[in-house]
């Protein structure tokens, strides 16, 4: 297997387009060879997950590129950072950590990127289009772009996304290629009530199971009784990209490459067919909760980042009410989406309820939670999945309504009526 490079690729590799491009192309070529790629292809957009500050190695990588004069050559959005520049001092973020995270933000901003600072770039004006070749990091964004939009990105890790953005190239592998976008396993929904399918907590639960069952194979969902909205599909994908390595799913009659079962599987037979029953979902819902208590210190919403439609859904639930004084209520979103919510009047309602807002980052990427916050509750599978390992916190999963009711009550309460049968 040999990788064939075009003339411009070779120029970039030899350093004719600057040292940052040379370093990026050198990493790109080594990875393309490891991946058995035959060639590189042009991309027309990128999303950079490397913005998340983990430690000084990632910072040294960013500053090395920046100091070598790195510039992106395609429209490039930025994922969440480690720091809410406006509100970080209201939280437990250590000052020296904030300084390092901020240096990393500046390094990536200096490369000519668009500072969207969000893990939901598909809900900005930079949303890609069907069939567009892109190089995206951030697992939830990758699965949304491939599945719901039909744009094409491989499941790219941090540090690689920026190499693609600088060179405008990506290896011709994986989900960039039509033949690798076929479904491999079938998830057949059996007797799932429509009322539950309308509910927002159905999607994280189904997604959590889907990730566990599919791992890195493309799942195809059959048997939906309704057409889910964008935020429900976002929750489904994000959950499956946390519990598994799902980079794309199909939903028959809903997602753009799955008009029919045959098109979703590209004429192949499923490797495996799994029936999804209420029992399956009960088990999955149980797994999303990791707590030994009804105690509640904080409700956290917005992974992936809250959209305008989600603010619109939340506002009437909290309108005219007050959260319990012992419970914090946090919504994480992008600064742009927050401005839209403000203009729509939703933020005033949330503030009156006692909610707080964090922009540009979230509880998973910024060490913001004070030690006294031990018991969390969320409607987001991604928070539920990562909170125990990443934050050492106990967490309960519930619907948006459950989260609001619990914040008012001061302890975990969940409406079980949709989950009864």
């Amino acid at each position, binding site marked *: 297997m040999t990788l064939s490079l075009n003339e411009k690729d070779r120029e970039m590799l030899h350093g004719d387009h600057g040292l940052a491009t040379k*370093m990026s192309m*050198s*990493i790109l070529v*080594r*990875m393309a060879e*490891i*991946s*058995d790629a035959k060639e590189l292809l042009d991309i027309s957009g990128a999303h950079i*997950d*490397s913005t*998340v500050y*983990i*430690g*000084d*190695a*990632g910072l*040294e*990588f960013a500053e*090395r590129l920046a100091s070598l004069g790195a510039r992106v050559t395609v429209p490039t959005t930025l994922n969440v950072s480690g720091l809410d520049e406006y509100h970080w001092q209201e939280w437990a973020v250590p000052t020296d950590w904030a300084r390092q995270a901020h240096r990393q933000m500046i390094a990536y901003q200096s490369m000519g990127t668009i500072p969207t600072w969000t893990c939901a770039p598909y809900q900005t004006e930079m949303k890609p289009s069907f069939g567009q070749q892109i190089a995206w*990091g*951030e*697992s939830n964004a*990758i699965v949304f772009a491939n599945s719901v939009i039909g744009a094409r990105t*491989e*499941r*790219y*890790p*941090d*540090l*690689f*996304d920026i190499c693609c953005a600088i060179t405008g190239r990506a290896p011709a592998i994986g989900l960039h290629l039509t033949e690798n976008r076929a479904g491999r396993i079938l998830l057949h929904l059996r007797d799932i009530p429509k009322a539950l399918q309308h509910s927002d907590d159905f999607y994280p639960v189904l997604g959590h199971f889907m*990730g566990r069952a599919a*791992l*890195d194979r493309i799942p195809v969902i059959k048997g939906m009784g309704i057409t889910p909205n964008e935020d429900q599909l976002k929750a489904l994908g994000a959950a499956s*990209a*946390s*519990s*598994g*390595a799902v980079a794309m799913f199909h939903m028959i009659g809903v997602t753009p490459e799955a008009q029919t079962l045959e098109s979703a599987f590209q004429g192949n037979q499923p490797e495996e067919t799994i029936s999804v029953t209420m029992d399956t979902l009960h088990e999955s819902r149980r*797994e999303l909760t*990791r707590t030994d208590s009804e105690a509640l210190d904080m409700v956290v919403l917005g992974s992936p980042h809250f959209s305008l439609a989600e603010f619109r859904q939340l506002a009437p639930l909290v309108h005219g009410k007050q959260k319990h004084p012992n419970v914090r209520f946090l919504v994480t979103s992008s600064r742009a989406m927050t401005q839209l919510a403000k203009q729509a009047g939703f933020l005033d309602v949330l503030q009156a309820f006692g909610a707080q807002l964090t922009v540009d980052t979230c509880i*998973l990427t910024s060490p913001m939670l004070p030690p006294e916050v031990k018991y969390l509750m969320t409607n987001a599978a991604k928070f539920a*999945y*990562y909170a*125990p*390992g*990443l934050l050492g916190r106990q967490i309960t999963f519930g619907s948006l309504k459950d989260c609001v009711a619990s914040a008012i009550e001061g302890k975990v309460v969940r409406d079980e009526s949709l989950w009864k049968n």
Partner: protein
Amino acid sequence: MEKLVIQGRPFITGSASGLALVSREPLSFWGGYDWKTGEITDRRHPLSGLVGKGKILAIPFARGSSTTTAVLLEAIRAGTAPNAIITTSTDFFFALASVVADELYSAPVPLVAISEPDFAQLRTNDEIEIDDKGKITVRRSQQRIIATETTNRRE
């Protein structure tokens, strides 16, 4: 002491040795590996609580978050990474961390892919040596090398 030799496909070449940490469950390093200590911290993972530093980690591939690469890179810089990682397919996330560690610190972590039947023969606490051609030598005392099929399938 029993001995087993497996020929793997090295996708980042290099030699390494250490005790094995083995699981059939994929692992996200983000939220699953504490780069400051090398502890596996995914509380849903069978290896939770064990330390990967200095070991030969054997897992099928990286699960979940695209930040796994960044966490492994931090671990390499901090000296808390496994000595090598064995997977069942070429893992892009681990490979990239190793390539960037080579670029920044000249310190790549060897990575070897092996077949699933070979993978099924590995056990935690095996003594493993990997050479720069991807040859994996496994030594195990007091135990049978080939464990029962049923145990493998149950995992």
